[in-house]
């Protein structure tokens, strides 16, 4: 059940000029949050930007003993800039948890899955990695970014999944494989690794390539989609994507986590 509440900023952790983690009080949203869900945050006094912004619930954790929700944010415009400047203690209106989470209920020990992240797409995969590891499910991370500094929270992933299960790719070769994360993932498939399911979050070109790979290899997938959102809970009908059955699905309510087969990639 989604909640509209005001949560205080516990801490902002800067990775570099364009990336930071924002820790808010967990409120009643944190304990309910499932991996892949998101929240709508109001940045600033709500006038500029005018609408709330969507952010994946990256982790549910603690900060100095206080239950916390973590968001990992990339600065791209007015809302993310404003959020990056909030002082500790500032009250932030938050609506969440929202959307359909990654499906994990059908998995158990013995299953092996892959997490594929592109850029800021790491965000929803942290909490997913935590839940999978708690359930004893083996997961391999394939994580690509433009360069080393775009590949965030490696220590967390390596702690949760084991360092050998975390592989990286960068466009400039500054970390891991020089090239695309989908090539990294294809390499693993070619090497014979079998995955029961692939969880992914990243830019559309990555999704498009990955959807092709999964279809070819007949592997189940769950992608956390993004879209410009006005409401986040299914009422504005603004965030839709074209579906394989010829409709438009709301990313915020029917998603954000959808199987790639649900999407009409030719109309996206």
């Amino acid at each position, binding site marked *: *059940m*989604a*909640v*509209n509440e005001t949560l205080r900023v516990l801490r902002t952790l800067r990775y570099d000029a364009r990336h930071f983690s924002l820790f808010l009080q967990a409120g009643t949203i944190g304990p309910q949050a499932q991996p892949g869900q998101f929240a709508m945050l*109001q940045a600033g006094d*709500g*006038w*500029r*930007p*005018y*609408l*709330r912004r969507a952010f994946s619930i990256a982790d549910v954790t603690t900060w100095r003993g206080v239950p916390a929700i973590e968001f990992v944010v990339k600065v791209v415009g007015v809302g993310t800039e404003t959020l990056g400047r909030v002082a500790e203690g500032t009250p932030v*209106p938050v*609506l969440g948890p929202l959307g359909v989470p990654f499906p994990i209920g059908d998995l158990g020990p013995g299953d092996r899955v892959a997490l594929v992240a592109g850029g800021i797409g790491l965000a929803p995969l942290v909490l997913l990695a935590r839940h999978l590891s708690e359930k004893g499910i083996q997961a391999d991370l394939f994580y690509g970014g433009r360069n080393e500094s775009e590949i965030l929270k490696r220590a967390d992933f390596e702690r949760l999944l084991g360092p050998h299960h975390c592989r990286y790719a960068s466009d400039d070769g500054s970390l891991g494989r020089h090239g695309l994360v989908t090539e990294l993932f294809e390499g693993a498939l070619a090497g014979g690794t079998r995955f029961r399911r692939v969880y992914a979050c990243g830019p559309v070109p990555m999704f498009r390539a990955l959807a092709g790979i999964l279809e070819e290899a007949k592997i189940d997938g769950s992608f956390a989609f993004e*879209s*410009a*959102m*006005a*409401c986040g*809970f*299914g*009422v*504005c*009908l*603004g*965030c*839709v*994507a*074209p579906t394989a059955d*010829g*409709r*438009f699905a709301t990313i915020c*309510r029917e998603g954000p986590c959808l199987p790639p087969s649900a999407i009409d990639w030719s*109309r996206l």
Partner: protein
Amino acid sequence: MSTVDLAVQLGTLRLKNPIATASGTFGYGLEFAEFVDLSVLGAISIKGLSLRPCHGNPPPRICETDAGMLNAIGLQNVGVEAFLSEKLPELDRLGATVIANVWGDTEEDYCAVVERIGAERRIAAIELNVSCPNVVKGGMVFGNDPVALGALVRKVREIAKRPLIVKLSPNVGDIVSTARAAVDNGADILSLINTLVGLAIDLERREPKIGFTTGGLSGPAIRHVAVRMVWEVRRALPKVPIFGIGGIEKAEDVIEFLVAGANAVQVGTANFRNPSVSAELVKGVAEWCAAHGESRVSNIVGTLKTRPRPEHTYA
């Protein structure tokens, strides 16, 4: 505060308070039940219904603007049939006062939806959306032209068995003409305004930010245009009940519309920013009245004092 009488009367439509929600910004109401007790609201106008379910426009459908947003949803909806069977019973159970916002591509389409609703008592009123700027047919074609609008309203009025609201477009030279056309042909109540047509451009792609090219501008950016139109219609048609709509965020904004001449308001885009805002406004309006010694909210309606307008004086 319990001493403030919030009830308002719009023709035969009696609302427990003047705060309704605007079509297209409140889904089918049920999505808000987590955040708002629907029974405390004056009314909810649900997403525009057509005879058959409609898929709407290809994305992108929305973009943010200064103090507002553009949208071109294209009237995606489940269709009147699914609404009546799947949504309405639950809305009724939750105590919601439901306004059915309806649209069609042609006069026949409009009439068919209204016919289907018939004398359904769980629908408090029917609201004709003749002003949607985001569709190729219907929509603004009617809303822009007093003659076409009058003919449509007359046809619908003949078959409508519930109070009839006509929702006007602000994209006109003279709002009084379309208001008069609606009222003269049988509208019981007017709603104004729908969105202003706007265009925003993605400069990197040199493409519209909205897939439909243009979109409807809503939010605080349009509020004072809306208040002006309500005032113009109130002056010209002193008796017609009016829902004021446009950029309402705060209790003061509601009062501003009432003073200008609206009998009630509909809250739109603000529901996206804060899903609990409608219920908060009911409280806020009661508090405003109490703080200002107003025991009945309906006494505020149309109390704007204007001065005669000066002509030029030359040196």
